[in-house]
């Protein structure tokens, strides 16, 4: 009984941590290229959840058809975020101005602002209501894994996160655009000299990151069965914490840190009231900043 209880708690931690990781990877990808944090990312997650809802209700699509819809909407929102919040402040594509402090601060605010606009617009349209994903689409059936009860959604979260990670690795290592992304993030000047179109790479990064964010929004909304315009707010904060703990630029770091934060929160919940578990993530953030400022897998920066 007690073992199952603890295992159950940890299973929850893993599935929550996976979601954190997917969100954090989206932030990390963008940070690697621009050294900037996309604070509209949480709202891309929300948009993914709303696209799922609209697909399931207004368009009455089956589950398999919702997946490409959400991914497409995610990609489109990534492109839009780049166009509206990042491109206008990026006048030059040389390294000094791309990663300059002024640009970083400007995009921090412009992405934050865009996120607020999206959130409040959704809030106005849907009157801040909690909306329900139709029961036929919800991934809420219990599954018994050797005494530990998880839901189909949990398995979907774990499965899709792994798929997304594999897909991302394939994209980054085996495709032209992926190699370009890696080239730009490791040596911008060199990449430019080899004739890589920086703007194109940046757009690609935003699209990929936002597809990940929207996919997370889709799976989470199907798992919990409800959608609300403010749901991205907690996610972006957690994603940011995980990104920092993971080392800002490392994808494996984001995965490990995501799982670490998720499991640590769940484990803490066994001993303290769950309202206190929020502290765990921030505690890890604080400890990282104090003792390991480069994060778990951070690379040395010149």
């Amino acid at each position: 009984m007690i073992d199952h209880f603890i295992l159950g708690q940890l299973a929850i931690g893993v599935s929550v941590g996976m979601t954190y990781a997917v969100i954090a990877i989206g932030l990390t990808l963008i940070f690697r290229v621009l050294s900037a944090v996309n604070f509209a990312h949480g709202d891309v997650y929300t948009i993914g959840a709303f696209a799922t809802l609209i697909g399931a209700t207004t368009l009455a699509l089956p589950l398999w058809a919702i997946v490409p819809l959400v991914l497409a909407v995610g990609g489109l929102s990534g492109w839009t975020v780049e166009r509206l919040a990042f491109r206008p402040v990026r006048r030059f594509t040389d390294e000094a101005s791309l990663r300059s402090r002024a640009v970083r601060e400007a995009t921090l605010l412009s992405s934050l602002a865009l996120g607020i606009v999206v959130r409040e617009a959704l809030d106005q349209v849907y009157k801040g209501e909690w909306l329900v994903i139709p029961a036929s689409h919800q991934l809420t059936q219990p599954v018994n894994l050797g005494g530990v009860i998880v839901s189909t959604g949990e398995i979907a979260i774990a499965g899709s996160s792994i798929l997304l990670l594999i897909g991302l690795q394939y994209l980054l290592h085996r495709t032209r655009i992926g190699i370009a992304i890696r080239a730009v993030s490791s040596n911008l000047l060199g990449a430019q000299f080899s004739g890589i179109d920086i703007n194109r790479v940046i757009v690609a990064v935003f699209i990929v990151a936002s597809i990940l964010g929207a996919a997370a929004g889709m799976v989470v909304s199907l798992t919990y069965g409800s959608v609300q315009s403010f749901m991205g707010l907690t996610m972006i904060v957690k994603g940011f914490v995980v990104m920092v703990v993971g080392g800002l630029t490392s994808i494996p770091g984001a995965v490990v840190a995501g799982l670490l934060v998720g499991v640590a929160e769940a484990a803490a919940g066994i001993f303290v009231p769950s309202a206190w578990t929020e502290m765990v993530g921030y505690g890890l953030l604080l400890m990282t900043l104090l003792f390991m400022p480069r994060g778990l897998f951070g690379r040395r920066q010149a």
Partner: protein
Amino acid sequence: MNRHLTAISAALALGLCASAGHAQTETVRFACYIPITGPLAQFGANMQHGFEMALEDFEKSGKLKDATVTIDCEDDQNRADDAINLARKFIEDDSYVASIGSWGSTVTLAAGPLYDKAKMVNITPISSHPDVTKVGPYVFRQSIIQSKEGPANAEYLNKLGVKKLAMIGLPNDYGKANMALTRMAFEKSGGEVVFEEFIRPDAQDFRQVIQKAARTEPDMIYLGLFAPQAALIAKQTRQLGIEIPFYGSAALGTYDFPRLAGEAANGTRLLLVFNPATGDEMADFFKRYEEKYGSKPDAFAANSYITATTLLDIVAEQYPDVTRESIREGLDSQTTIDTIAGPTTYDPQTREWTFRFRDGVIEDGEFKIVE
């Protein structure tokens, strides 16, 4: 110089006109502060609908022929600082005879003292924290209150034969008071609370709390929550294969709970007040509301309708001598009135209203009265 004088006299003339107009008021104005944007916008919108319907019904009734009444709502986003700023603005504006608001107890408790100091009535149709009416003689409330709901919950739990209760609540003024007063009454009547925890309202995953609660093997799980969180908890409990029945706070007596929780809401016991199952008048209000706004009202809409109607009846009785002070006197001299929620009684000692509680249950997504 000349131009200067003209300006001054023009301003003076305008001022005179304004005050002359004010003396023979043809509009009685109520101020109102509620959440209109932000995560709680839905509740504010429902409150506004309640006010609108009350104003319409009042106009139709012909109780007041020589004047019109308005309720001007502004947005406090359920934030204490915004509510305080609005309070200053409303108090300054002499055309307002009283202020209605807010939704959250925390907000009302923050703005209430300002109104009380300015001797302007502040009445909330929602905030249920015990301290609200203790702010001062100008702060009123007309809603179900925790100190009445707690003992009523305990009584119903006893009727259901519940001995061990697990409690999950919201960590705000509402949830804390609701949990504490229900717990106190339940323990006093011989029950045992085997688990109590407060959740993070912004979380989506409550399975940890649920598993911890289930481990204590309670007869029922008490939900001192609002519909969104309660629905998530209900769904996730059943998802975990846990079949312990739920007992909900009276705040769950709205259609949002069964709408959001689906089948998981069935079997939930709770006290019903603002629910069409409680009587024909309430059922009629629900019907008219749904026709007008295209969605079902919640307890906040119904309660706002009742409070607005109470104020409007006071205005009709006092007109044309409606002042800030007269509204206070009017409210303080109330006794038992008929509302859409049945007979409702004012106690001048505690300055609280007593609503009629009915034992209820959710079956097939519908609320039913248990005899």
